[in-house]
């Protein structure tokens, strides 16, 4: 069955990022139709009915999120586009921004209109210098065509989209840290509640949506909720961008319906394992902060509910594939170092726990492990999990728990053999 790409429909076209190419292939038709034929309330309903779930990681219903906004319009409302894509193993939003910025921008305009926000902020990761330049140009093009500014397409709706490049902190992808950063402060997550829909940017009701989520809103506006909901699986509707990296022949971003089997993505889209003689050992299906699946449990469907049932999460769909040459202690150490570096330092369990993980793992990998270390890792993870201000705590606690639990013998072997058995084997 051939799948026609929807999100990636333009990326291979020459000059795909220009508004002319975008317009030539049906671009901004969804916006035109929505503004002319329907209402913001109907647009919210349409998105609800489409079943679209947020593509940033949590998988929460986008239409539902929008409907959490307070009814009155006493205060301005803001839409913030979360383009701070920083999850290791995840690089899908960058592709959309750099290759098809208007698909994202059209979805941004549609969503801002749906929630009646007259100012939208595009918070883009600090390292995405090219993406920011490209997106700024897209904004200028859209303005020149009357898709931005005042009285857009004669609808009476005004909108400005303001791009803002962060400083490259992973934590600023957490929505409340993003708001703090956007307000010019240190990127520290806020205590919730209040949720941003009630008290968000500058104290005003705010919706934060992921880049890919907004690209999907464009599709829904173009072809309707019923069509959209027919893609994928029940409650897991629509097309999805899957990133595959690690020990595969062809790493990259692949589009497929939600619910596509992981092994199909791995073997067909990504071309299979990198080395014929090194079979699959483990895969993190949803980005570095999600739980790892050992090879024997990798026969799963890639959607929110199937992966939750498998004990992990779809997350940002950043699949990281590890073959038999991978040392799971070293892999976890690598992750732990990242999370130690990126912990904002605000709350106790994460600030102290992330560094502790790293120190224990470094000892284990370096041959100074103690028999109690694997259990200590699990217990420290238990003390971090659920006790932090933001989900960053889980983002490292879950990998620690799953790596140690799923590959316990490997951790114990590091203790028993006073070092990494794989390294020892390679040396001998």
């Amino acid at each position: 069955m051939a799948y026609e790409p929807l999100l990636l429909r333009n990326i291979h076209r020459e000059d795909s990022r220009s508004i002319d190419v975008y317009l030539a292939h049906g671009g901004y038709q969804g916006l035109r139709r929505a503004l002319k034929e329907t209402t913001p309330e109907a647009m919210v309903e349409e998105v609800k009915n489409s079943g679209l779930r947020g593509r940033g990681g949590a998988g929460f219903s986008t239409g539902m999120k929008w409907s959490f906004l307070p009814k009155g319009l006493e205060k301005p409302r803001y839409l913030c586009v979360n383009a701070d894509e920083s999850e290791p193993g995840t690089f899908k939003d960058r592709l959309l921004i750099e290759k098809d910025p208007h698909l994202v921008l059209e979805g941004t305009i549609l969503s801002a209109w749906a929630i009646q926000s007259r100012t939208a902020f595009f918070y883009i990761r600090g390292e995405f210098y090219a993406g920011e330049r490209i997106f700024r140009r897209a904004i200028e093009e859209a303005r020149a065509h009357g898709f931005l500014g005042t009285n857009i397409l004669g609808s009476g709706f005004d909108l400005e989209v303001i791009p803002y490049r962060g400083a490259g902190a992973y934590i600023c992808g957490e929505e409340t840290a993003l708001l703090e950063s956007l307000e010019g402060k240190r990127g520290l997550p806020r205590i919730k509640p209040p949720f941003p829909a009630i008290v968000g940017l500058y104290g005003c009701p705010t919706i934060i949506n992921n880049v890919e989520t907004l690209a999907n809103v464009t599709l829904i506006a173009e072809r309707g909720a019923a069509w959209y909901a027919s893609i994928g699986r029940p409650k897991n509707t629509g097309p999805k961008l899957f990133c595959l990296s690690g020990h595969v022949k062809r790493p990259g971003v692949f589009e497929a319906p939600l619910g596509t089997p992981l092994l199909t993505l791995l073997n067909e889209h990504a071309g299979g394992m990198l080395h014929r003689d090194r079979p699959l050992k483990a895969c993190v299906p949803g980005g570095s902060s999600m739980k790892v699946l050992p090879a024997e449990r990798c026969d799963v469907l890639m959607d929110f509910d199937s992966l939750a049932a498998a004990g992990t999460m779809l997350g940002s769909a950043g699949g990281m594939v590890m073959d038999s040459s991978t040392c799971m202690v070293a892999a976890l150490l690598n992750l732990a170092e990242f999370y130690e570096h990126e912990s904002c330092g605000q709350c106790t369990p994460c600030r102290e726990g992330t560094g502790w993980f790293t120190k224990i793992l470094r000892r284990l990998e370096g041959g100074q492990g103690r028999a109690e270390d694997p259990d200590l890792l699990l217990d420290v993870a238990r003390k971090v999990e659920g006790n932090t201000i933001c989900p960053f705590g889980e983002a490292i606690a879950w990998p620690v728990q799953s790596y140690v639990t799923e590959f316990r013998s490997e951790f114990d072997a590091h203790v028993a053999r006073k070092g990494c058995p794989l390294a020892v084997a390679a040396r001998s």
Partner: protein
Amino acid sequence: MAEPAQPAPAAAPAPVELPPAGPGEVALVVDGRPVVVPKGTTVLQAAERLGIVVPHYCYHPGLSIAGNCRMCLVEVEKTPKLQIGCATTAAQGMIVRTTTPRVTSTRNGIMEFLLINHPLDCPICDQAGECRLQQYSAEYGTGESRFVEEKIHHDKRQPIGARVTFDGERCIKCTRCIRFCDEVSKTGELGLFERGGHAIIGAFPGRPLDNPYSGNTVDICPVGALTWRPFRFRARVWFLKDTPSVCAGCARGCNVNLAAYDGRIHRITPRFNEEVNSYWMCDIGRQSHEALYARARLERPLVRQAPTPAAGAPAGPATAGEALDRAAGLLRAVTSRFGPDALAAVVSARLTLEDLYLAKTVLGGLVGVSRLIVPPHEEGEDDDLLIRKDRTPNARGAELLGLGAPDAQGLVRLSDDVRAGRLRGLVIVGEDPVGDGLLGEEALRSLEALVVVDSWKSPTIQAAHAALPAAGYGEYDGVYVSFAGRAQRARQAVRPHGLADPPWVVLRELGRRFGLSQAYAQASDLFDEVASHVPALAGLSYRSLGDGGRSIAGA
């Protein structure tokens, strides 16, 4: 990173009967005990009402909520995750548990986390004995750590401000100090720098922690990270005894504790009073006890034996009786030779209400002094928080007693009168007009009688015929009336220095030589008498003033 999946909440056990909540109130249950609180109360505060302590570091009632220490995590029924008590609003019917195995285990974990990079240098830490880490380790810790790694190191003695030293290793990043500077002093010198385990409190470049309220950051620091430099390594806090009192540094009357040990005040810290100073005090007041020890005290009574002051013979030691006799004799001689107009007194608004009352009745009444002058002591301007430009604690008290508002002109006229020979005798209590540059020593030397009662050896005393040592701040009991009209008790924390007596005792003894018959055994006797004469103080007593003082009618 993504929002975590939530496990299903556990089934609820048998409910506790909720008391009725009025409008604007909610009823909830904490550890099986019902409580009704105003809407908007947090779970932590609701528990507090029941006497249930929810341990915390970052929460401070005078600051915004940060929710970062995670020590106050408690179980809230129907909520799968533990919730921080400091930021969770109590809701109708909420069922909170603060002592379950899950809460206990989490607290153990938080304590372990807080200590893994903490230097545990308690033996030499000034905070030891009043440290939340120590306290909670005892109450909620496991007593051991599983951390065997090298700790993160930071600078241990960084002069973060003129009077405050920062130890980066002891810091638990609760950000109370940052929030204080942002929200209370509104000076914003402090911020959190770096990230993760390397996160560290610091002053912004070129903005040291030098605001006039910097000492409060030391008070609210729950650990030994911020220390008050004048107090560093001075005393183990468990030897200090706190006496509730009132600051005498300005007319605000901040409620304070005087911490004394071995006959000396070592530290002044603010004592909560919602209506006066909340949790705070200024650095000037905090250092006001240093004046007691910085200058040489007048240790014993002095009497000049030379027949004429112009001879300039130095004063020599005497007994209090001798000094008082000499003072009484000289004062009497002036009135008999020149009449009462030739006699004046300068009394200080730094004196207590009791001192001032006896100054008025003894000097103004029995001795026959024609005028009592209260010099002003003003500096700078009133600020928006606590500091008043009137740097005396009791100007309102002096006014209440009919001594008038402090007036700079009074001393100018007095000076003219001395020079013109119209004024021949002067009693000065608690002031040093020569040292303050308000009266010339030469002019004073022309007087026939100069009687000085003060705590320090001063240029004014150099010219005195008789000088009597006065107990200083913190050395005797009395009442001050703040600029806002609040009568508050200042209390004795240490014994008077040397042979000093409270000024009112000196005045009483002088009064004896002019026929004073009342016993006035203690300061409260005087206050009771003042209260019976001054309508604004009617019905008040030391007991009714209590620790927090009382706003007085018509003041």
